[in-house]
């Protein structure tokens, strides 16, 4: 069977499961007794195994199978989690990650059998002491047992009062009620489609009263290999089962007539009864049912049966979420976004075409329609933007694991606290932000935090703390990464800079602390005394800075020697389309992001004062430096000397500046286009946009001007 078309989905989901495993195993390390965590890990390992098996990746399947075995034992309480097991599990995850990478690159999992790891895993299975013999047979007995019980799974469908009433009515009317459990083949890929066909076949004969999982979940493929239904029909059971089996890729359909609804009532009373209880029951039932066939197919059925148990719990989980999602290729979204951009440009052209035809009668209708169009395009843009927004969770989730590993590697105790993982950013930004963040965290772990002795000396807690906080601030998202370590030693940086010839000693004397710290962002500037393989190769901070700048963001650092440092990354929520203030300077049109504009002022030339030969204005109690845009842009102003000046007050952080422009043209939604590498050296211009008349206007970066 050709599975290549499912490769993408497989890779995506595998990554998700691996991430999930990483997180949960970390949790487990903190709280080895947590049943939910164990169950979650078990489920993820199981799904991984199933997926790998379907795709034919045998090695991956074997490894996950053994992991699953370990967790199944942990779940049964026969073995306890120990710290060396956590290490082994992490190694397993790394091995799985390697398989995944191999698969992504060569569509092949590679040849590493990881036998050593598998052996370690199997060693974990051996319980301490005398119990050694007992759990093993018990578990093997349990597996086929559970498998056999799969047949009567329908009996555990919870029924509410109304449904029971309907069933009772049906029986009174002489109809038959069957409980049926249908099992699809393990190799089946379009499970939901098969299930749908089964539903259709059954509905031709009668009525499906209830199904487990719910019809919605089945449609969304939220079930493992089997599902159960309760059918009201006139037809005999054999007929129904035969019709179900006629659907291809259906392995088995079992059922029985239901007459006693009391039995189900009991089950219904405890729909979320714990797995243990269910296992008990199934064991009881299965002892006599342990037939030859069950034994023969035991190996294949075992996982499926376990799924059954897992599924029952999962059901209560997924139901609560109930999100309906579609996986979409990011490229398709890019195309959509580009089309929206084109639409907005076209809309702008339409607006400018109608406004230039002034004096024509009967334009009111056109105007109102254009206004409507503007509303629609703006909403459309917002919706597409929202679709593209993803929580930064997907990126930051891998950090706790990284910090744990670093902690072992560097032999420093440290703890990572994260907040705001749910903060959303444009997908493209989220994809790119991972590396810079990782770098800053590594820096904090390696350079920031002091060694245990120094920390003790300074009276700091033994465990160093590293934090990552993300939150939204207006149209920006702020991500702060920091530590309570040593902070940046400005003198040290200064000496290093002089030593390297980056600055002369005279220059260094006149530099502020901030300017010196900014030197850290220069290429090849590393102050680590030793180069470790964690950080210190000097390829770091400049890359961090340039990456963040290409995303339209900024990075700054606040540091206090001896107390720690915080790196603050500010990123725009959206990249492609912004609201801009259009202005004219010397006859040329420029756009300024409306985000940075606070107010517009009309200033008389006489109000301009000189402070240290810089022009400033007084505005509501604050002194604001003036920037004459025509001077910055090398062009003659069209404003006459004695005329009042139009000043746009812009802010960056808590700094303000007044930009003197010749004319205001209004607010416009603009699509940001790159200027191309050829001219992007001009930092005051952050991009260009195409106006309604097809002309290009440049976008001024107020942040650079201030």
């Amino acid at each position, binding site marked *: 069977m050709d599975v290549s078309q499912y490769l993408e989905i497989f890779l995506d989901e595998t990554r998700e499961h691996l991430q999930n495993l990483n997180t949960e195993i970390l949790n487990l390390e903190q709280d080895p007794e947590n049943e939910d965590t164990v169950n979650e890990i078990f489920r993820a390992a199981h799904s991984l195994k199933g997926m790998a098996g379907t795709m034919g990746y045998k090695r991956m399947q074997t490894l996950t199978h053994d992991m699953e075995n370990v967790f199944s034992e942990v779940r049964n309480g026969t073995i306890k989690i120990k710290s060396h097991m956590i290490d082994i599990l992490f190694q397993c995850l790394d091995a799985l990650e390697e398989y995944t990478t191999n698969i992504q690159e060569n569509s092949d999992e590679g040849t590493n059998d990881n036998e050593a790891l598998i052996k370690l895993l199997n060693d974990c299975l051996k319980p301490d002491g005398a119990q050694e013999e007992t759990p093993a047979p018990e578990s093997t007995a349990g597996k086929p047992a559970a498998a056999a019980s799969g047949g009567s799974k329908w009996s555990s469908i919870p029924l509410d009062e109304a449904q029971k009433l309907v069933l009772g009515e049906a029986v009174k009317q002489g109809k038959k009620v069957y409980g049926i459990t249908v099992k699809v083949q393990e190799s089946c890929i379009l499970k939901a489609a098969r299930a749908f066909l089964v539903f259709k076949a059954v509905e031709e004969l009668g009525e499906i009263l209830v199904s487990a999982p719910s019809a919605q979940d089945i449609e969304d493929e939220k079930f493992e290999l089997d599902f159960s239904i309760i059918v009201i029909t006139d037809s005999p059971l054999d007929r129904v089962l035969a019709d179900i089996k006629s659907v291809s890729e259906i392995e088995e359909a079992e059922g029985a007539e239901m007459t006693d609804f009391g039995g189900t009532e009991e089950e219904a009373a405890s729909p979320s009864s714990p797995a243990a209880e269910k296992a008990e029951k199934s064991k009881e039932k299965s002892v006599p049912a342990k037939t030859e066939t069950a034994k023969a197919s035991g190996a294949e059925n075992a996982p499926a049966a376990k799924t059954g148990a897992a599924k029952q719990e999962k059901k209560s989980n997924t139901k609560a979420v109930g999100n309906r999602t579609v996986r979409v290729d990011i490229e398709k979204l890019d195309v959509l976004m580009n089309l929206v951009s084109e639409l907005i440009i076209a809309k702008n052209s339409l607006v400018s075409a109608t406004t230039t035809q002034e004096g024509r009668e009967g334009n009111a209708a056109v105007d109102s329609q254009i206004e409507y169009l503007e509303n629609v395009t703006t909403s459309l843009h917002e919706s597409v933007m929202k679709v593209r927004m993803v929580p930064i969770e997907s990126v930051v989730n891998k950090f706790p694991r990284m910090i744990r590993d670093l902690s072992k590697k560097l032999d420093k105790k440290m703890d990572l606290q994260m907040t705001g993982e749910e903060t959303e950013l444009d997908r493209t930004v989220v994809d790119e932000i991972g590396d810079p963040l990782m770098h800053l965290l590594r820096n904090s772990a390696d350079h920031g935090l002091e060694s245990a002795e120094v920390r003790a000396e300074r009276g700091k807690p033994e465990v160093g703390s590293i934090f990552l906080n993300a939150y939204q601030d207006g149209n920006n998202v702020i991500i702060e990464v920091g530590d309570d370590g040593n902070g940046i030693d400005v003198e040290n940086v200064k000496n290093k800079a002089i030593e390297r010839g980056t600055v002369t000693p005279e220059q260094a004397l006149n530099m502020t602390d901030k300017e010196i710290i900014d030197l850290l962002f220069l290429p090849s500037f590393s102050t680590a005394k030793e180069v470790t393989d964690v950080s210190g190769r000097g390829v770091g901070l400049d890359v961090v800075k340039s990456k963040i700048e290409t995303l339209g963001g900024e990075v700054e650092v606040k540091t206090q020697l001896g107390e720690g440092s915080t790196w603050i990354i500010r990123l725009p929520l959206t990249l492609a389309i912004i609201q801009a203030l259009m202005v004219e300077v010397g006859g040329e049109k420029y756009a300024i992001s409306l985000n940075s504009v606070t107010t517009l002022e009309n200033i008389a030339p006489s109000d301009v004062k000189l402070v240290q030969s810089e022009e400033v204005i007084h505005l509501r109690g604050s002194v604001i430096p003036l920037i004459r845009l025509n001077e910055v842009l090398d062009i003659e102003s069209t404003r006459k000397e004695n005329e009042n000046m139009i000043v746009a007050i812009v802010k960056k952080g808590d700094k303000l500046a007044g930009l003197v422009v010749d004319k205001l043209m209004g607010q416009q939604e603009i699509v940001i286009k790159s200027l*191309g590498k050829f001219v992007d050296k001009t930092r005051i211009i952050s991009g*260009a946009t195409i106006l309604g008349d097809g002309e290009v206007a440049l976008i001024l970066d107020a942040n650079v001007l201030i």
Partner: protein
Amino acid sequence: MEELKNNGGAKQFIVIRVGEEQYGIDIKYVDNIIHMCSITRVPKVALYVKGVINVRGEVIPVMDIRTKMGLMEAEYTKNTRIVIVKSEQQGFVGLIVDAVKEVVTLEVDGIEKVSYDNKSGKTMFVTGVGKHQGSLISVLDLNEILTE
């Protein structure tokens, strides 16, 4: 002809005129040739960068090949064209040329290499000189033209 192509023995060039001289641009780099249009000036860039233009919804930087070669700037005429070329490093760039004449096929063997002893500026941008129907065509080194 077909045979020559297979050997990589012949290449097609767009012939442009700058001043009195003819230059050839390898056709594989040429994306589009457009008439002169309104150029938005970009401040604080090299003198030869005239600004940016809108070509089918994309913003593309434009440079004046005369200024880049150290020639006097000339008035734009009805013959003036912007040749949009695509380079791997710089992406799309428009070159303002005095005129675009024709497309010619030159045999690679027939293009004579130019020595770089002569540092008179202009020749820096030329990789070789080919002959076509009795006139000389200097083959432009686009990478050299597009680097600052």
